[in-house]
Each structure stands twice: as C-alpha cells, then as structure tokens.
C-alpha cells in the first residue's frame, strides 16, 4: 500500500495557505503520493494582493539588505541539503546529479545575492546631454511578476526562474506544476530567509486552468514564461496582456545582466545646473 506522505500548502504573503477551493492534486514521486494545492482563480487574486504588499516591502529594503536576505536563503538551502537531495532522487535523479543540482542552486543564489547591490551600477548611467543639466537614468523594479517555472526536476532551474525578478526588487508569484513538491519544499526555506511576506509567493496548480485569469489580471505587471507552452497559449497570453499593456516574456535569459532586463523600468531625471 502506498501511503500519502504529506499535504503541502501554497506559500502566499508569508503564510502557508490551502487553496480556498479545498482542491488538491496528486504528484507521484517514486511511488509516493504528495497532495498539493490546485490553485484557484480566487487564490491567484489573493496572491496578487499579497504580492503588491510584498513588492512595496521588498523594494524599499536597501540593496545591501536585499543581498543579505538572498545570501541567507542560500544558507537555508545548504542546511536542508539532504532533504532536497532525497526529493530530487525520488524524482529520478541519480545521487550525483541531485547533489550537483543543489550545489548549482546554491551558487545561483550566491550570484544573485551579490548582484542585488550592483546591477544598478551596470544598467544606469549619467547621460551627457547638451546643455546645463544633470541628467541621470536609473532603474526600478516593474512590480508584481508572475513566473511560470520550467518545471524540470531541478532546484537550480526553479531558483533561476525566480531570482532575476526578485533581485531587482519585484515581487514574484512563482507558479509550479510537475515540480510543485520541490517548490513548496523550497517555500519553507524562503519563509526562514527574512524575505518580507509576499515578496516571493509559491503556488502549485495547473496553468492551463488559470491562464485566462492570470493574463487578464491588470495588477500583474509582467509574466515570464520559462516553460515550453503551446503557441495558442502564448497567443492568448499576449492578447489578454494587451488590455493593460502587461509585459510578456517568453523564455527570457536566466543568467547574466540580460536576465534582469525584463524586470526593470528606466527612470530618467533631469535637473538644471546653475548658481
């Protein structure tokens, strides 16, 4: 007899919550069954409210502080190395591959943690305008970002689909399907990492059931799709996005300065010089 191991909850607004619908779906890993929430439309709306607050609280932390919070997340991951290794092995990875993936995941967090207080120096600059003006362009976070994760059984991929938006100060609603157990496990470490509630929200469900609601939601500023989806789904997302000029990114880069480009807005400020 297979036993049901654990019922996971969504992680929204810094709290573990069940789907308001009460619905779950089952994920099988190595003959074990896990029940994870089947996120509903209402759950998404609630998550956006939480993420809006999360964005306000996260973006106002100093870059130095953001670096430390992200670094702490890597410490949490290291501390739970064996748990992740077991989950990845249950998902079919060899012991060596599982270990390698977790090491890479830790390195990815370290890279982004150190980026949080530097990227603005690489994306912003003084503009040499003709005239007696001080003119500077710097960048701000877009707002609430929905990410559809690649859903490969990889902790590193999972993190690389959240970190670019998070690092620049966006709040993230990370949506997971096949890799939900891994993602909801990660939520426990996120909860212990001092990220403000709502900055990073982890949800599980079936994207195809929510695609209309998510792409129509005007308070989601951007969607980053890191998973291969059907062309008609891409079209639907972009059509709905056009109602509020939502920014849509299909398979954006996950490393390098260019990984941050989708999630930032350039603000340019002018001031005259004079006596």
């Amino acid at each position, binding site marked *: 007899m297979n036993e049901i191991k654990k019922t996971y909850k969504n992680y929204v607004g810094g709290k573990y919550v069940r789907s308001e619908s009460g619905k779950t779906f089952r994920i099988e890993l190595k003959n074990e069954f896990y029940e994870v929430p089947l996120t509903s439309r209402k759950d998404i709306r609630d998550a956006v409210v939480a993420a809006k607050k999360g964005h306000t609280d996260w973006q106002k932390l100093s870059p130095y502080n953001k670096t430390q919070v992200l670094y702490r997340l890597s410490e949490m991951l290291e501390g739970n190395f064996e748990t992740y290794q077991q989950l990845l092995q249950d998902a079919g990875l060899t012991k060596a591959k599982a270990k390698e993936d977790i090491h890479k995941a830790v390195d990815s967090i370290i890279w982004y943690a150190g980026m949080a207080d530097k990227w603005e120096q690489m994306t912003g600059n003084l503009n040499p305008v003709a005239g007696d003006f001080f003119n500077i*362009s710097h960048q701000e976070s877009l707002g609430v970002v929905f990410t559809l994760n690649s859903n490969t059984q990889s902790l590193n991929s999972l993190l690389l689909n959240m970190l670019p938006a998070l690092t620049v100060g966006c709040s993230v609603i990370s949506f997971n399907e096949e890799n939900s157990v891994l993602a909801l496990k990660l939520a426990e470490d996120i909860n212990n990492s001092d990220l403000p509630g709502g900055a990073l929200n982890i949800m599980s469900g079936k994207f195809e059931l929510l695609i209309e609601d998510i792409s129509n939601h005007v308070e989601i500023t951007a969607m980053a799709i890191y998973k291969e989806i059907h062309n008609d789904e891409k079209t639907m997302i972009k059509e709905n996005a056009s109602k509020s000029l939502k920014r849509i990114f299909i398979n954006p*880069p996950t490393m390098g300065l*260019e990984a941050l480009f989708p999630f930032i807005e350039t603000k340019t400020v002018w001031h005259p010089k004079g006596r």
Partner: protein
Amino acid sequence: MNKWEYAESIESSSIVNIEKKYGIFIDGKFQNANSKKFIKTISPSTEEVLSSVSLGNEIDINSAVESAKEGLKIWSKLSGTERAKYLFKLARLIQERSREFAVLETLDGGKPIKESRDFDLPQVAANFFYFAGWADKLDLSWNAKGLKPYGIVGQIIPWNFPLLMLSWKVAPALATGNVVILKPAESTPLTAILFAELCQEVGLPPGVFNLVTGDGSTGAALVKHPDISKIAFTGSTGVGKYIQKETADRDIGLTLELGGKAANIVFNDAAIDQAVEGVVNGIFFNQGHVCCAGSRLVLQEDIHDEFVTKLEKRMQSLRVGNPLDKNTDIGAINSKDQLDKITSLVNEGVEEGGTIFQTDCELPQNGFWFKPTLFTNAQPSYRISREEIFGPVLTTLTFRTPEEAIEISNNTEYGLSAGIWTEKGSKILWTADRLQAGVIWANTFNKFDPSSPFGGYKESGFGREGGRHGLLSYLKVQS
C-alpha cells in the same frame, strides 16, 4: 505712452518645393504605389492642400518588405563604422537643409516655425549624430551576451513631431544594423518624403530605408506582415494595445511609446515665476500635442490663488496664430479631427463643473485653432483630469501634503513623464523616487536630448528611445 503696433515677421515658404503628388520610397527610389490611391495633405493653418501622397496598401507593404530584405543583405555585411558614416552624412545634410525642413514641417503640421526651427530640426540632426557614433560600439554598450539586430523593423510615427519622431526611430534602428520600413502619420508625411530624398543623396544602399505613406490601414498592413521582426510605434495607447494584440501570435519585438497625462507638481517652496514659465512650456509647447505634456498642474493648496493669477497673466501673453510668423507661440491644431476631440473634452470639463479660463486672443478665420485653456476647480474624476486631451488645455488639481501630491500624480493608468517644482533638493529626490514615470523633469520641463532615454511606465508603453538604453529597443537579447 503709445504702445507699439505689432509687426509680424513671416518666414518665407519659398525655400520649399512641394510636388503635386508623391509615390512611395522603395528599393532606394520613389515609385508609384500599387494602390493608385492618394490622400491629400493640407496645411492645418490655412486648410490649403499642399500635396497628395500615396495611400499604401498591403501590396505596397509587401514590396517594401521585399526591398528591405535586399537592403538587409547589404546592410548586415557593412561594418559598424561604415554604417556610422552614412548616419553622420545624413546628420550633416539635415543640418545643411534644416531651414527647408523646418518650413515644410510648419506648413504640413501647423507648429510654430520658432519650434520647428529651434527645437525639432536641431534635435533631429543631433539624433543622427548621436546614434551614428554607436554603430561601431555596440559591443561596448551593454554587458550582455548575444545582442543582435532584429532585421526588418516596421516603424509607425505620429503627427506631433513628424521628422523628430522619424529620427528617434530611424537613427537607432539603422545604427544597430536593422533596416527600416517607415509609415509616417497620415496628416504629416512631407518631411519624411524629403528625408527619403536625403537617403538617395547620401547613397544609402537601396532597401535600407523604405517609406510607405498612407493611413491607419497602411499601418495595420505593416503590423500584420509576418516578415517584420520588430514594431516600434509612437502614438495613442489605444493603437498601442491594438498592436500588442495583433502581434500576439508572433515572436516579435515591440517598442510602444504611448499616451500620457503628466502631473506637473508645484510645491509651495518652488521659485514661483520659474515654475509658471515651466508650467506654460509644459502644456503649451507644440499646441499641447505632446505625449509627455504636463497636462495636470498639481498645485499645493496654499499657493493656488497666487499661482493661478500669475499663470493666467502669463497665458494672456501667448501669441496664437500663423505658425510661419516667427513670433508665434502657439500654432494650428494639427487636424480637424483633433480640434473636434479637444473641443468635446473641454466642453465636457465645463459641464462637469470645472472653472474654465481662456485667453483673449483672436483666432484666424481659416484653419484649426484652439485658445490656450486652463481649468481650475477640477476634480480628479473629471475626464479632463484623466484623459489625454493632446491640446493646449491644462487642468489644475490641488494637494496639501507631499504624500497627497504623489497619490494624485500616480493616480492614472499612464506613466510617461512628470514635473517637480521645489527649491529643496531632498524633496526633489524624495518625490522623483515615488513618481511612476519614465521621465521626470525637476525645475524644468519638456527637455529632450538624444542621449537621454525616453519612454513610459504602465500604460504609457514599454521600451526606451534615446541614450544607451534606446539601443536595447533595436537589439534582440538571445536567451
């Protein structure tokens, strides 16, 4: 004491030579459009017909795309420095013929010669100079891997700054190695046609710059063409949304520079006389046909009466009339359609309960004109406080605290620009951090430069034009 009589000073239009009919510019030469249809372009200050330009159809767009494909073969083989030389040459030629361009712009669009001569044309040349220099330094521009040109870029530009918007689009696109199909606005095609002649003169390889004149249907055909890999559009938010929707089934790049309803915030510690000048420039520049116009005056309550008195006095001195008169401050409204839209929104503002002030100026008999207009006692819910009027109409809202100023200013779906007037440096930075807008002018307004990125937050669009950031609008990041 006797007042001196006003003496006009008219710029001669003999410098321009406008033909009766124009074709479309494809394969490096002017050709007859397949449509065989023409649209008349008039001078909005006299309603005189200036010329007829081709109404490009789908087949014309197809021809332009074929031409662009050939152009891309040549253009992509040139080194950055070779591309730069063409752009430098264009810049120089624009400077040399700037008076001709300025007069043509004023005739076709109705803007004061003072502005086309002293603002539009110098900026146009500057844009070509600036982006010319980037063409052979793209590898130094960003610490990002795999930046590549899109290929064939479709560009659709508005009627408020016809040649300037051409330069904002064409210069960076060509510098980054793309080729261009440009669709100018229906009511202001003439300076783009003259620009095409310049492209011939500098020997730009055929197909690198293509021009198809026409109306909305021409633009739609361009947007729908499957071989276009990037659309750059400046215009209304409504059309921007249409373009995003229409291109939803394709993997293409989009830059949308759309509408605005900018707040121009005046704090009680501002230098009042300077702020009055800035507010006047912010809304009445180019008849208020400016997407980043400071159309909402957000005024601290305790200086309201003093400020409005000074503002009305200053507005009375604005000279409205013949745009070719070098003394004219406010020219003609660009079209009958636009005049009707402004009139209807202003009438609604009065009906809703706003207090209207208009200057005592006399308006010419022919052409399209609108008096400089100020609304006070307006509520944030009024249409004049929310919708882009795109005319010489300023709406006043008041606030008590800086927090309230931010709330009022950000309470719009737009986020293109904003203004801040205060003598206190820390307050400028505090306010600028909180305003959701892509361009913020502090103790100044409506300043532009090729090196300074321009573009909006929220429903004012996405992507930037100008500066190092403007390059990213024409370079694809490969994942």
